[in-house]
């Protein structure tokens, strides 16, 4: 491998102007990440005209900084206010918010910052070394593979959250139903749109998440506060303890790998990565019941994974010219405005941009980690603000943020509707998590399944005869069957009492690890 372009990349990044743009980018990113609803896509759209006048490399370095900076900032609202800014941070809410209630918000934010830094950095190294190889593997993921992944995701959804399993499944079913709203991409038929053009493209993720989590929580608290005087949560420790760190070590390592691997896939990669990372930790845990009640791994794993995924989602853009998500589409546009066409020739024609952007991420991640330290201390003080003041401000910022996504007033009404639904769900013990996640995955599953069947000419055996989708379906079978098999064995042994936690986890691990392999070979 020729390292000289990489070194030239560092030369470009270390120019004072570019360092400054990188800093500006990550600072803006972190701040907008903190404002619920206002995502990186909307911010980049607003800032796009400003980039006309600056050098292409500097412009992209700044915009990239906004993107991954927002991933850092997004954690803050997820943990402190139960407001996930992006689909990929929904999972963080469960344990993050629980930790904040226990006064461990600082530890949650600290571990998220550390995990994000490590995940991001691992993914950048992967990006520098493996980009062309990994890009090819992303192309092997066709509709059947996405269908399988989506299905696996929905299965995992029932394991997240802290409500009961049945309630999680009900929530997920409703989420899948909401995902069907909109004009059918295949036939042009209107589904549940009631002739309203605002619904023709379906419902956006942001109003749903903001409503169900954020506004729902605010409404619920209004009622709670009447019953008992709600003291602002105590903030004891600002930093994760040594024990927190050692507990999260494995989660961060696995989260980095999962995030990098799944983040490369355009369309749903980031959401799936955080979900899978969380599910893996829960499955590996000696006491899975801690999850949803403030387990630090439950914050570390998805936060690491979504940052790693955010970084590796640059691979399809920079090597194939495919924008993996809305923000990447804007980067694509920003490059086009600069007269640079992203695609397979980018690395040869504009090595300065390719390596400049990648290397700026190393610097950006370090800057973010440094900024996080004092920021965590400041932001956790939000929890000391009285709900009477905090609630209306949060509601207002949420509405503003939601409006900016599509400049749509209709979306504000949607937030209010979903806010009421979120309140009712919380009141009746439903966790909104499975619903939101199933909603995100629903569109993916439906369209990829129908696309697959069109490609197969209507023959469903295609799903299992393709190597990658076959493997994923084998994993789905394993997830479904392993608990059943274990139950049967337990009954047969006449073991009325559940075995000690350690042995259960031990057997669990060996069975889940061996089963998919066996079935994979069969599928092939």
């Amino acid at each position, binding site marked *: 491998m020729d390292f000289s372009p990489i070194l030239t990349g560092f030369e470009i990044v270390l120019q004072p102007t570019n360092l400054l743009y990188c800093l500006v980018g990550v600072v803006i990113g972190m701040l907008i990440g903190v404002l619920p609803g206002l995502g990186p*896509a909307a911010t980049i*759209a607003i800032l*796009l*005209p400003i980039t*006309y006048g600056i050098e292409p490399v500097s412009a992209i370095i700044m915009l990239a900084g906004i993107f991954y900076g927002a991933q850092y900032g997004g954690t803050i609202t997820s943990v402190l206010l139960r407001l996930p800014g992006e689909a990929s941070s929904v999972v963080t809410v469960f344990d993050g918010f629980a930790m904040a209630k226990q006064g461990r918000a600082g530890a949650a934010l600290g571990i998220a910052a550390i995990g994000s830094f490590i995940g991001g950095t691992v993914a950048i190294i992967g990006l520098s070394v493996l980009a062309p190889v990994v890009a090819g593997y*992303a192309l092997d*993921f066709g*509709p059947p593979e996405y269908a399988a992944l989506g299905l696996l995701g929905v299965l995992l959804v029932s394991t997240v959250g802290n409500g009961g399993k049945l309630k999680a499944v009900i929530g997920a079913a409703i989420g899948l139903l909401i995902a069907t709203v909109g*004009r059918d*991409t*295949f*036939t*042009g*038929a*209107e589904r549940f749109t009631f*002739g309203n*053009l*605002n619904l*023709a*493209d379906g419902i956006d993720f942001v109003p749903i998440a903001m409503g169900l989590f954020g506004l729902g929580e605010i409404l619920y608290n*209004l009622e709670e*506060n*009447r019953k008992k*005087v709600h003291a602002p949560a105590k903030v004891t420790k600002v930093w994760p303890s040594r024990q927190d760190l050692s507990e999260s070590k494995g989660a961060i390592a696995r989260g980095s790998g999962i995030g990098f691997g799944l983040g490369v896939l*355009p*369309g749903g990669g980031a959401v799936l990565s955080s979900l899978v990372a969380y599910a893996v930790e829960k499955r590996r845990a000696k006491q899975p019941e801690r999850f949803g009640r403030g387990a630090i791994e439950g914050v570390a794993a998805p936060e690491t994974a979504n940052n790693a995924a955010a970084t590796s989602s640059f691979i*399809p853009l920079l090597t*194939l*010219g*495919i924008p993996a998500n*809305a923000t990447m*589409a*804007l980067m694509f*546009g920003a490059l*086009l*405005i600069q*007269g640079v*066409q*992203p*695609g*397979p*020739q980018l690395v040869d024609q504009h090595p300065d941009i390719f390596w400049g952007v990648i290397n700026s991420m190393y610097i950006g991640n370090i800057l973010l980690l440094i900024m996080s330290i004092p920021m965590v201390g400041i932001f956790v003080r939000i929890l000391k603000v009285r709900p*009477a003041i905090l*609630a*209306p401000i949060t*509601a*207002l910022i949420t*509405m*503003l943020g939601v409006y900016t996504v*599509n*400049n*749509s*007033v209709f979306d*504000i009404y949607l937030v209010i509707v979903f806010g009421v639904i979120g309140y009712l769900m919380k009141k009746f013990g439903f966790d909104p998590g499975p619903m939101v996640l199933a909603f995100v995955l629903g569109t993916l599953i439906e*369209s990829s399944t*129908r*696309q697959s069947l*069109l*490609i197969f*000419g209507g023959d469903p055996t295609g799903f299992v005869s393709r190597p990658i989708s076959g493997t994923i379906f084998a994993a789905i079978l394993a997830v479904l069957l392993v608990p059943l098999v274990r139950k049967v064995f337990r009954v047969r042994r006449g073991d009325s009492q559940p075995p000690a936690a350690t042995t259960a986890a031990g057997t669990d691990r060996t069975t889940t690890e061996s089963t998919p392999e066996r079935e994979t070979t069969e599928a092939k």
Partner: protein
Amino acid sequence: MTNVRTRRRVATAAGATALALVLTACGGVKTGSGGGNATGGSDYPTKSVEMTVGASAGGSSDLISRAMSKGMGQSLGVAMPVVNKPGANGALVAKELQKAAPDGYSIAIQNASLFAITPLAVSEAEAVKVDDFDIVYGVSRDDYVLATNPKTGWKSIKDMKASGKTIRYGTTGVGTGAQLNSALTFATAGIDATAVPFDGGAPNLTALLGAQVDVSTMQVGEAIENIQAGKLVPLAVFSAERVPFLPDVPTAKEQGFDVQVSQYRFITVPKGTPQAVKDKLVEAAKKTFATAEYKKFNEDNNLTPLEVSGEEIATQLKSDLQSNTDKLAKFNISLASKS
């Protein structure tokens, strides 16, 4: 004590809702109000002109609007902010513009496909009609190219037909030019084919690069980079003459299949906008077209200028709609129900 507290809390909640409502009200006012009508538009423009785009930021419609708003704003001497309101392939913006005050302060660059192709796939109520707007001026044309993955080994439409297999082709959704071009080509050539619709250009391109589908029709700008890199092989372009950006690629017509549907864009204002205002907009557009910066933008984005009068565009749109309707009827193709 608790009671007072409750009341205060309820009041805060009400306050938040009220604020949200005020906010929405403001949004409504900004797009609607105007002032140029009383003077017949002679002093136009006295304030900023809002240009809406019916697509997300970053796509070709957005980039074109931004390039135009930059030039036109400078020429008119006012700010011309671009506001993205994606939804229903641009129909959302069309309906909104239709209802806006005809004073020249609300304008939009719209796509031909919305007027000449989408009506063939959606219900009558949703179809956007040419006569509902005043078309100010044409902007540019974006041609479509049919491409395949090099793995297939095909070089032309004939090769594809010779393979004798049922072709799986990717489209960018129902009621788009990509779908219409492909469907007409396969019908004219008598090739057995199944459409696989994707939600937009990026997933369609991904599927073709990964050989998940055999061929796809895309806008030239979306495909050109991969064509030049040898990752995609162009089979035909759907234009009257060869596309200057792909001079070696024969048109479908040259290969004996008379299919030519292009995407083109034009400036629109609400029906009944004063002539004086429209004249000023035309002047501003012409000044923008003449700048070196804008010309370079067109070249960088593989766009062919279509700088003609609004009347010509209107006639073109109507004849395109008619010919598309006729062709679909002739081959008994339906864009909507066939999946």
